[in-house]
């Protein structure tokens, strides 16, 4: 009996190879930010501190996964001429929900993110994944695709925020990391990390590292 069970399990693992590719690919080789160049807008402006960045990453994840799922359910009934407006409507309803939830439970972070919660609507990742994937695939696969891509987005912005908060103000999540003794020895926080341009340099370095490790991603 148990032998049969294991056999069945082997034949049908939790995630097939294709599904795993959907999840893992966007984390590196097909990353939405560094390779597909989507969703840069909101990615950078919120990254001065780690906490709002994590809230932003979770919000984007919720919107991408849910909108992928909903559009994928409706994909056969949406007339292709008006699909953009249908997609925008679904996305903005989800973003309104996210915005209201943030205002209710983490008001201070919601104030910090200000317009950037609303800008999830025009975040190219959401539209891009709907157009490129959810319109032509089943709901299950679309959910995985949404998770994969938003996780790829999340790790990049969290990495950027980590560098900026650590080097810019010597803190992580608001707690001081770099001890006072180091400051007394003459260490100074890097002010470049706090201005908007700092985010661009950090992300350029991430791209540089990624493309030197994987030379087939280089542009001519």
């Amino acid at each position, binding site marked *: 009996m148990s032998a049969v069970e294991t056999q069945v399990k082997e034949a049908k693992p939790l995630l097939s190879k294709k599904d795993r590719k959907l999840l893992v690919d966007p984390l590196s080789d097909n990353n939405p930010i*560094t390779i597909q*160049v*989507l*969703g*840069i*807008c*909101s*990615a*950078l*402006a919120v990254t001065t501190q780690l906490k709002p960045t994590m809230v932003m990453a979770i919000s984007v994840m919720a919107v991408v996964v849910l909108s992928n799922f909903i559009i994928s359910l409706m994909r056969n009934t949406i007339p292709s001429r008006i699909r*953009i*407006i249908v997609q*925008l*409507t679904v996305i*903005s*309803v989800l*973003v*309104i929900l996210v*915005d*209201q939830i943030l205002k209710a439970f983490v008001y201070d972070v919601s104030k910090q993110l*200000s*317009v950037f919660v*609303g*800008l999830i*609507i*025009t*975040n*190219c990742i959401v*539209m891009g994944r709907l157009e490129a994937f959810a319109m032509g695939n089943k709901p299950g696969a679309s959910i995985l695709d949404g998770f994969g891509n938003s996780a790829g987005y999340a790790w990049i912005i969290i990495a950027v925020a980590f560098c900026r908060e650590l080097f810019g103000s010597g803190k992580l999540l608001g707690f001081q990391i770099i001890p006072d003794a180091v400051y007394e020895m003459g260490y100074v926080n890097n002010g470049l990390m706090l*201005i*908007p*341009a*700092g*985010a*661009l*340099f950090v*992300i*350029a370095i991430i*791209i*540089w590292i*990624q*493309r*030197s490790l994987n*030379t087939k991603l*280089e*542009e*001519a």
Partner: protein
Amino acid sequence: MLFLASDLISIFVRSIFIDNMIFAYFLGMCSYLAVSKDVKTAIGLGAAVIFVLGVTVPINWLLLNGVLKEGALAGLHPSFAEVDLSFLAFIMFIATIASMVQLVEMVIEKVSPALYGSLGIFLPLIAVNCSILGGSLFMQERDYTLAEASVFGLGSGVGWLIAIVAIAAIRMKIRYSDVPKPLRGLGITFIITGLMGIAFMSFLGINL
């Protein structure tokens, strides 16, 4: 009156240089990176952005203050006086932008086929440009008056045009430079944008 005019000029200059959509808020980065390979197309897209921002920000201001804000509907029926619909702002703004873009495209096609030839292909791209929605959201957050909102919309558009034309010109030159291979394309564009952002920060000291 003079005070008002100087106020408006101050908002205009601020929105072009200091609160530049790209260098201060990274809005509209997607099309900024994708369409900045050639100066001519960059100018076309920039002009379309100025146009759409200049039109949608005042319209969204009217909608926000005439329909969505608390008490705005009191004129219809006294019992609506406490209705606050401002949580619907996102969906209202994006619907306005999408339909305005469509409308503008149709009007330009009818009125000026020459302008349509140069701007037309960019208009659909603009509906999902973050800087357009961003303009309306900033207008809501900062509580501008109608005049301020119009000036702010135009100024932000001009700032965006300057940014994309500058980066396009630099990218055309950089083709002849020896950039490290892994940095070519996206990486070096980010670094240049950062340097330009630092240059634009020098406008911070200007007090109007």
